[in-house]
């Protein structure tokens, strides 16, 4: 499937703590915007991929946008693990001839809607019955547990986590669409912030956002005739490691060797582009500690060196690996990571608000800590 399909359209709604329109309307608006960006008619759409947590199904999308006969549709599980997999599965479907115009999307009102961890349906999934009765309730608690262990084993500090939060916030300060566009974040602000789950504070957490995003894929051949320069799907990986659990990944051999490691082995196995060739990355950032863990898992440094990698402005423009150049989930919008996909495309097009010079490839990852996925996009 290498370079066989490309993202040729991206679209999104505004991002806000509260949007009035329902999730379905937001989904359709984002999809139509992406099709318009690509210069592709909605009637040509014959493939769909989204998240199992997505509330608007393919039938609803197809009937609203006026799609024709649809011949491929799939949903990927595990929340923030799904984003790049929706694109990767469409790319495979296009390469295999199962569809010709694919749309991936995510619409979510996490800002004004309910908190999933507080809902009854989340109360006792298979692993939750071994964690929640003792008060390990929220995703932030589950990741904080890994973070404390990571700090203990490798000497990571809150300063390293602050490096991540500040680097990503600075990106958002250049992006008028970002929720945190006008809000600076200093190291003093970070250190003074209230705890959410020690050792994680407020600024280690992503935003609560309403919004929707979508992208359009076609074959490489068709992509040459589209309105926008293509972002080729060069490589794709998914990863569910041996004996891994979702979020509460305490019952495998080494919980600090997470799904990113499994995913990246598959990703690079089929890729001509290796970590040292990648000039910019969009790394899933629901929580700051996922960045050092992802830097290790995706091969930018050795195990245990992810925290030290963040030093000296490495994640900022001009650094070794600028990340989350639209502000990511921490400071632009948290829509299960789909904004990372669209920003990856903008880097390839050269239209990012924080353009990385000569960005001929971009890594886009899903959540570390859940069954995950990743893409390498290239010019």
């Amino acid at each position: 499937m290498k370079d066989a399909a490309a993202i040729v359209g991206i679209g999104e709604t505004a991002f806000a703590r509260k949007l009035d329109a329902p999730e379905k309307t937001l989904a359709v608006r984002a999809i139509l915007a992406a099709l318009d960006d690509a210069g592709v008619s909605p009637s040509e759409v014959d493939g769909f991929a989204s998240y199992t947590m997505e509330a608007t199904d393919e039938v609803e999308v197809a009937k609203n946008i006026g799609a024709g006969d649809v011949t491929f549709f799939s949903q990927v599980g595990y929340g923030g693990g799904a984003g790049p997999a929706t694109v990767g599965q469409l790319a495979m479907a296009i390469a295999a001839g199962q569809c010709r115009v694919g749309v991936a999307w995510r619409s979510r009102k996490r800002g004004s809607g309910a908190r999933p961890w507080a809902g009854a349906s989340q109360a006792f999934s298979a692993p939750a019955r071994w964690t929640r009765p003792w008060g390990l309730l929220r995703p932030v608690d589950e990741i904080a547990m890994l973070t404390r262990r990571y700090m203990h084993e490798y000497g990571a500090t809150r300063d390293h986590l602050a490096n991540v939060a500040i680097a990503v916030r600075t990106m958002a300060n250049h992006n008028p669409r970002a929720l945190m566009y006008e809000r600076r974040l200093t190291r003093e602000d970070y250190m003074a912030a209230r705890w959410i789950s020690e050792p994680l504070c407020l600024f280690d957490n992503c935003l609560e956002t309403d919004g929707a995003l979508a992208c359009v894929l076609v074959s490489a051949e068709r992509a040459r005739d589209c309105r926008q320069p293509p972002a080729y799907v060069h490589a794709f990986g998914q990863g569910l490691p041996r004996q891994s659990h979702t979020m509460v990944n305490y019952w495998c051999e080494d919980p600090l060797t997470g799904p990113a490691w499994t995913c990246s082995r598959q990703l690079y196995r089929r890729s001509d582009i290796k970590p040292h060739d990648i000039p910019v990355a969009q790394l899933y950032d629901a929580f700051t500690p996922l960045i050092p863990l992802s830097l290790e898992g995706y091969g930018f440094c050795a195990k245990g060196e992810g925290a030290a990698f963040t030093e000296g402005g490495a994640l900022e423009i001009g650094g070794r690996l600028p990340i989350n150049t639209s502000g990511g989930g921490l400071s632009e919008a948290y829509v299960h990571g789909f904004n990372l996909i669209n920003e990856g495309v903008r880097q390839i097009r050269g239209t990012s608000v924080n353009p990385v010079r000569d960005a001929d490839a971009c890594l886009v990852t899903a959540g570390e800590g859940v069954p995950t996925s990743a893409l390498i996009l290239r010019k």
Partner: protein
Amino acid sequence: MSEPLLPPVDADSAPFWEGARNGELRIQRCAVTGRLIFPPRPMSPWDPHAEPVWTAVSGRGAIWSFVVPHPPLLPQFAELAPYNVIVVALDEDPTIRLVGNLVARAGGPIDEVDPATIEIGAAVRVVFEPVSDAIHLPRWVLA
């Protein structure tokens, strides 16, 4: 005090809770390889032909990590916050890790131990706190 958050008891977990009611920490073991298995499940991942058998372990371990949650939380925990949640690596197999709480004494509240005194690596032993007829939660005290 709000109702405690009680886990459902099913075929996979019933022997664990039965053990807890008897003051015993029970973990599954692969009948062929002898490796411990957690969380409990119908099949052994270590041998496709082996069913897990239940075995009592010593109830001793070491703190692998811990967190201190602050609000927003579910009501029954918000009133205790900040409290601790620990992960304990069992002495028999440190890759078997149980989520629990560090308490000062059996039956003590989960917000009693000063979080600043909690150390990764500290030796702990299990105690059980009845929170309903069916559920006696394992918690941990310093050994």
